[in-house]
């Protein structure tokens, strides 16, 4: 069983706007640059939950068709803004029967750790991974 393939996300102000709209999140810090600067940030901030979506996407694509997501957690460590290049990686850390635990990370273009996470996937019995 291989580790997930890394994914690279480059969030834009357009993506942040649509994510705020889709979650009905009115917080100015995600779409008003002047407000974000007033709070001391260089630009509008990627939503905490969108970071979560980036990390879980690594797991979703890896598990594609051969398992179900049972647990997922993430912690925001450092903010990200549009223009950042966010690389999300995952590693298998434990296999217990059908349960696979993965550790996840998101780092920016300066190798700064932005998000950590973990996931537990229950493999389905008809998986074609040669077990």
């Amino acid at each position: 069983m291989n580790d997930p393939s890394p994914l690279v996300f480059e969030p834009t102000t357009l993506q942040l706007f649509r994510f705020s709209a889709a979650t009905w999140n009115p917080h100015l810090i995600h779409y008003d640059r002047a407000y974000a600067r007033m709070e001391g940030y260089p630009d509008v901030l990627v939503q905490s939950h969108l970071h979560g979506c980036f990390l879980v996407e690594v797991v979703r694509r890896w598990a594609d068709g051969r398992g179900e997501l049972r647990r997922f957690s993430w912690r925001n460590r450092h903010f990200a803004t549009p223009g950042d290049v966010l690389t999300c990686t995952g590693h298998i850390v434990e296999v217990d029967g059908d349960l696979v635990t993965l550790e996840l990370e998101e780092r920016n273009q300066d190798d700064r750790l932005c998000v950590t996470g973990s996931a537990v996937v229950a493999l389905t019995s008809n998986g074609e991974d040669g077990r």
Partner: protein
Amino acid sequence: MIPELYEKCRSLVGVSTTEYLGRIELLATQRFAVAAGAVQCPGPHPLFLSSVMGWRAGPPESELYPDGTADGFVPGLPLSGVRLMGAGQDLEFHEPPRVGADVTLETTVSDVELKTGRSGDLLFIHLRRRYTSADGTLLTTCRETFIAR
């Protein structure tokens, strides 16, 4: 401001509030998946339930705080003048939510901590949220900490 909020929060520890959120609409789940950059997401995305901030129309603009936010993160806790940050979630997926399901949310303040950081007082509000469908099926449990400053 934060110490007063801490006292108010402490009185809410262990208190559970249940509210009907609404029906999971297909279009809303599809828009979420597109905005999240998710590929091949036929059902609701796993983070959909715990990411949506407003299930209702919400208050008019005149009732939003200057940063655009509204009350409601913590039922019974007014957050005027406080900056609230989410810092991640712990999610357990029990049953996948289905489009058309009527979702009820039970929010419990599980703990609250007051910490003094370099930039002043910080309040850590730990919540447990349980999302269930109308027939009582537990869908998702979300544990989340908000930092208020």
